[in-house]
């Protein structure tokens, strides 16, 4: 452009303009100051962002890409800080509404910028002339080094966040900035879009007449931010506190009148967690609109945020998530581990409760024992409510079983959970509970009441902890005891089948008659051959012993049938070898159940006897001989071979048909023709001194109801109670710890979190860690070394992390039920954010920088409704508190902040100067930009005005005054205003402004009214020429400051 050299004040390019007088002397202190600034700027310019980064530019906290460098400067006994803010990413426009933007970037739409401010407490220039001078100095310096950086000076009180600034935009344009804020009592006019629009227009339309006449094409973008109202945290905390004081009554009905967010979460039975999702902030951004009248603005104010182009949400997560102690399973488990640690101090649980125990003074004072009301509640729940637990395996993870504890929902598991949540879970409280628990169990035993919450499948699960095994066994003993009692009741009249009479040898004839009655009950079984069932491996159903029921009267009325006792029905059509009668399977006794310690005992006994085969072979001899007795009773004419054919078919070698099963072969072979079948015992069975045959020979014919039971329920029951009553404290606590970890995890595992992948993996990891950490506790030997306790403490920390994540996952899931993508994304981000923070609990773990989790997420259109639903219409109480004064309500919620950007662009087409330069329209310039941010009572306004001289400055003056001070004055004229850039030296300031202007054209006389000058003395950026006089070739202008 031709004009370049004319405005270029740095003198770099004026080789051909020799007529200019250049003065580079630095006379005054102000000039030296400018020179200093210039030197710094040149250095920064030369370095470029990359070098500056190397030289130690500081990254700003809130931003990912904004850095700053700082330099100290001195002028007139004062120190100033000059800071240069820059972004590393070179390209790209500043996107409005980006939360990581610097304040000034937001306000003025700039990218890199300079700020110069005095080194004072406030960091703000309070004195207006000083501010102007500073800005002038920077502007001159920047111009000198041809920098296009905008420069800002803070002014006024810091609370106003007021700035003035200037930017040289190349040769022809200059931008000025000014920002200010009204902290209270915003005029009603400015609360609404309409008023704000008028405010903006007033900046370039000079009279109300203009206003009505012109339709300015104002570009308008708006961003509204809404925040959900969340529950009062104070109330929550308070209620939590009182719950604590009420000693573990935290799930009592009276304190739970308020409904909690997690009421239907599985852990809510035990505690209420703080909702990790505190709320969210929704930012709705409207697309850019072109507005031509304030009426349109009024319409826009009524627009719903649903019409906005873009929705972003910022979830607020509770700070307690990443730090702080919260009450949960993990915190209680830690207490339980502490109790385990103490449990080694005493021999019996009673010692922790008894008064006489000497060294327990500190125990008593610090450890509170639950009051009777709490005990009542606990035991009512344990023993009287829902005695049958419906689905045991419901919450169990597939790895649960690897942890040797009681299964979820079982009596001991429930006991452990109650103990966990009774007060501070101290050893004394546990002792009190346990003693009471044993008392209740004994009561059930004495009164033959079924034990509640025990899996009643007639077997003992050896993968569970010993106490649970014992309780399972006790439940079976109680069952058997009841059966015995019932039998006794039944048979008082008939004098039959009672346990007491079992050994009695009653006449056979009597039995048969009475057995016929019982037989009727068994029609169903009679029809189905026993062997069929047995082949399918369901031993429990077929071999179920029956003390109560007698044998079956066979349908087939052979002569010997009246002798059968304890038959469960014929075995297919198998016939006895000798008598050719139907073979009947007897009812047999269940194999005696054993808990793992009994297994252990037997193993030790066997080991003690060494390797003597004769002994070990007899381990289960009782069962075999019981079976033989029963078989003999059911088949009076049977021989040993018959028994083997039924009991161990493999040892009966059938000559004719090797492949077919022994029970089937007679069927295929028809009847008596081939009788007796050609077969024999296997070699091992037929050998001399075979143990089986010996037992057979020694065994009397007795149906099960006459046999001595393999399991003596009375004896075993008492043994179990003895075990429970004399259990060592550490043994109890070890099993409690294992069980509690397991069922706590199982409880959490039931949480519905929408199948978030990371959470599923994390849960699995937790289970695995628990399984391996708890192993030392599962071996029934002393484990009380400090190492184990430390491991357990660490496990608690891990548990806590998982618990927290799970709470978050659950809360996110329910918050974004209809928008699973959001909950997934947020959880993934938080998970990645949180993971490095997960210490192992050891004090030496490296600290990760404390950063808040704040990430914004875009909301898809289909997800909007579910986000919008979170903004529940305010209650009467809430709306009463606040007078709504803004528009764009979302479900009755006023935006908490509204950001608006107005701008006008000048394409330079419709003005009379365009004629002079037909190419001028090619650039569209944002001549006015106003950024408004705030609410109805806190408004911030920032204005930037670009003035251009249309590619060709009409009037450019450069004057030299006395004292070699340089004054440059650029007068630029645009369609809407004339702006004068004057960079005045100190001298000029003293002298005031009186410049020589070329004679203006008539048109310009009009324009002069709108002049926006820069008046050094008053220090106001935006001033208007209120009067001017043109006399001959000389123009004098009077400036008056017009505050915004």
């Amino acid at each position, binding site marked *: 452009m031709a004009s370049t050299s004319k405005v270029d004040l740095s003198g770099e390019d004026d080789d051909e303009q020799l007529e200019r007088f250049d003065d580079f002397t630095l006379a005054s202190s102000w000039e030296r100051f400018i020179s200093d600034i210039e030197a710094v700027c040149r250095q920064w310019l030369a370095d470029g962002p990359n070098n500056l980064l190397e030289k130690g530019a500081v990254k700003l906290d809130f931003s990912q890409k904004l850095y700053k460098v700082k330099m100290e400067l001195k002028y007139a006994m004062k120190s100033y800080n000059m800071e240069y803010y820059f972004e590393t990413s070179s390209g790209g426009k500043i996107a409005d509404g980006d939360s990581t933007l610097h304040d000034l970037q937001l306000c003025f739409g700039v990218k890199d910028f300079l700020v110069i401010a005095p080194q004072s407490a406030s960091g703000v220039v309070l004195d207006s002339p000083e501010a102007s001078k500073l800005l002038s100095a920077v502007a001159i310096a920047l111009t000198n080094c041809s920098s296009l950086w905008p420069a800002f000076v803070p002014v006024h009180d810091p609370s106003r966040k007021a700035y003035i600034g200037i930017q040289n935009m190349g040769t022809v344009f200059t931008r000025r900035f000014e920002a200010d804020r009204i902290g209270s009592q915003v005029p009603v006019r400015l609360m609404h879009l309409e008023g704000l629009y008028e405010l903006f227009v007033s900046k370039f339309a000079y009279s109300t007449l203009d206003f009505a006449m012109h339709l300015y094409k104002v570009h308008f973008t708006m961003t509204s931010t809404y925040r959900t109202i969340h529950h009062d945290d104070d109330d929550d905390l308070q209620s939590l506190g009182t719950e604590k004081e009420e000693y573990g009554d935290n799930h009592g009905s009276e304190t739970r009148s308020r409904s909690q967010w997690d009421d239907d979460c599985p852990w809510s039975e035990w505690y209420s967690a703080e909702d990790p999702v505190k709320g969210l902030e929704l930012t709705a951004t409207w697309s850019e609109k072109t507005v031509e009248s304030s009426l349109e603005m009024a319409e826009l104010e009524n627009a719903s945020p649903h019409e906005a182009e873009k929705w972003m949400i910022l979830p607020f997560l509770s700070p307690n998530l990443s730090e702080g102690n919260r009450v949960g399973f993990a915190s209680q488990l830690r207490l339980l581990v502490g109790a385990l640690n103490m449990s080694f101090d005493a*021999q*019996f649980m*009673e010692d922790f409760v008894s008064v006489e125990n000497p060294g327990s003074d500190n125990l008593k004072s610090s450890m509170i024992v639950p009051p009777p009301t709490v005990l009542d509640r606990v035991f009512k729940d344990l023993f009287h409510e829902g005695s049958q637990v419906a689905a045991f395996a419901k919450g169990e993870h597939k790895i649960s*079983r*690897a942890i040797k504890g009681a299964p979820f929902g079982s009596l001991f598991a429930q006991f452990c959970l109650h103990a966990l949540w009774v007060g501070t879970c101290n050893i004394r409280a546990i002792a009190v509970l346990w*003693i009471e628990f*044993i008392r209740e169990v004994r009561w059930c035993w004495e009164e033959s009441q079924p034990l509640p919450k025990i899996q009643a499948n007639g*077997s*003992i699960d*050896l*993968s569970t902890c010993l106490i649970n095994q014992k309780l399972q066994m006790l439940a079976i003993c109680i069952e058997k005891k009841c059966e015995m009692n019932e039998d006794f009741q039944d048979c008082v009249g008939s004098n039959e089948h009672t346990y007491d009479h079992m050994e009695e040898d009653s006449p056979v004839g009597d039995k048969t008659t009475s057995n016929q009655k019982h037989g009727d009950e068994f029609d169903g079984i009679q029809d189905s051959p026993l062997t069929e069932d*047995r*082949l399918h*491996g369901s*031993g*429990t159903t077929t*071999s179920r012993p029956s003390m109560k029921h007698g044998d079956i009267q066979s349908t087939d009325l052979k002569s010997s049938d009246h002798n059968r006792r304890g038959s469960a029905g014929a075995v297919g059509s198998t016939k006895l070898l000798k008598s050719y009668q139907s073979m009947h399977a007897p009812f*047999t006794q*269940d*194999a005696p159940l*054993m808990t*793992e310690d009994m*297994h252990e005992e037997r*193993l*030790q006994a*066997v*080991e*003690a006897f060494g*390797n003597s*085969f004769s002994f*070990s*072979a*007899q*381990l*289960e*001899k009782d*069962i*075999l001989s019981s*079976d033989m007795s029963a078989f003999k009773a059911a088949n009076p004419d049977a021989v040993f071979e018959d028994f083997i054919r039924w*009991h*161990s078919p*493999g*040892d009966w070698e059938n000559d004719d048909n090797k*492949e077919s099963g022994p029970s089937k072969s007679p069927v295929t072979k028809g009847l008596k023709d081939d009788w007796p079948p050609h077969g024999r015992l*296997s*070699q*091992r*069975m037929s*050998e001399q001194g075979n*143990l*089986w045959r010996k037992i057979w020979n020694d065994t009397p014919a007795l149906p099960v109801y006459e046999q001595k039971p393999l399991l003596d329920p009375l004896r075993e029951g008492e043994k179990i109670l*003895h*075990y429970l*009553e*004399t259990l*060592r404290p550490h043994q109890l606590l070890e099993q409690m710890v294992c069980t509690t970890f397991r069922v706590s995890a199982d409880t959490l595992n039931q949480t519905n979190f929408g199948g978030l992948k990371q959470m599923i993996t994390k849960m699995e990891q937790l289970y695995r860690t628990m399984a391996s950490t708890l*192993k030392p506790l599962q*071996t029934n*030997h*002393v484990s009380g070394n400090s190492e184990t306790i430390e491991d357990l403490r660490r496990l608690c920390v891990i548990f806590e992390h998982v618990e927290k994540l799970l709470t978050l996952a659950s809360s996110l899931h329910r918050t974004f039920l209809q928008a699973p993508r959001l909950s997934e994304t947020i959880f993934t981000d938080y998970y990645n954010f949180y993971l490095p923070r997960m210490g192992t609990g050891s004090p030496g773990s490296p600290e990760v920088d404390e950063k808040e989790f704040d990430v914004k997420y875009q909301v898809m259109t289909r997800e909007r409704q579910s986000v919008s639903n979170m903004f529940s219409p305010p209650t009467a109480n809430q709306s009463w508190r606040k007078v709504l004064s803004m528009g764009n309500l979302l479900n009755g919620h006023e935006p908490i902040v509204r950001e608006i950007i107005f701008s006008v662009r000048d394409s330079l087409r419709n003005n009379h100067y365009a004629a002079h330069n037909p190419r001028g329209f090619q650039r569209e310039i944002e001549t006015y930009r106003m950024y408004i941010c705030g609410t109805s009572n806190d408004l911030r306004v920032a204005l930037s005005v670009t003035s251009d001289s249309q590619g060709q400055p009409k009037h450019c003056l450069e004057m030299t005054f006395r004292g070699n001070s340089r004054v440059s004055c650029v007068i630029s004229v645009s369609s809407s205003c004339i702006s004068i850039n004057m960079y005045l030296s100190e001298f000029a300031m003293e002298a005031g402004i009186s410049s020589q202007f070329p004679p203006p054209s008539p048109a310009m006389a009009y324009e002069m009214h709108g002049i926006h000058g820069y008046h050094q003395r008053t220090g106001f950026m935006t001033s208007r020429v209120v009067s001017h006089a043109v006399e001959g070739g000389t123009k004098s202008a009077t400036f008056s400051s017009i505050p915004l």
Partner: protein
Amino acid sequence: MDSSSSSPEFDYLFKLLMIGDSGVGKSSLLLSFTSDTFEDLSPTIGVDFKVKFVNIGGKKLKLAIWDTAGQERFRTLTSSYYRGAQGIVMVYDVTRRDTFTNLSEIWAKEIDLYSTNQDCIKLLVGNKVDKESDRVVTKKEGINFAREYGCLFIECSAKTRVNVQQCFEELVLKVLDTPSLLAEGSKGVKKNIFNEKRPQPDASTSSCC
């Protein structure tokens, strides 16, 4: 465990379990392994138990081998012996096909159901290879089953003692190679130490309550 004073010291204690149909030769195999003899034994009643001290892989090992009865009647009874076994020996008779098919139809399911040890090593053994003329299950079938079920495989004869030592040795070496099983085995050692120090439990404790 008082008897342990008379027993030699050992580094690890492993529990092994033998399962399979009745009459396939489990007890004979065990006897052949523990006492280098072969007898046609009476069928096992319920469960039997043998201890053998061996040196395998440079370690002194105590093997507690549980031998179960194959009869259906004893199946519920033997289920509790699966608990805590580090190795399970599944035996079939190469001369009886049903003993082979029952391994997959019955015994493998029993393991899944009752074994508490996820890592436990399984070994498939085809017994009675001395009766080569009666053989109905080929070696290839055995290998295929072992591959499918993820276990070790060997054919042996308790009678001629072919491969009997190798059979248990392979199993134990594999257990020694599995860290989690090794850890369990070594607990046995610790346990003995603790047991000796421990106060006599329960006998004198009836004073309470």
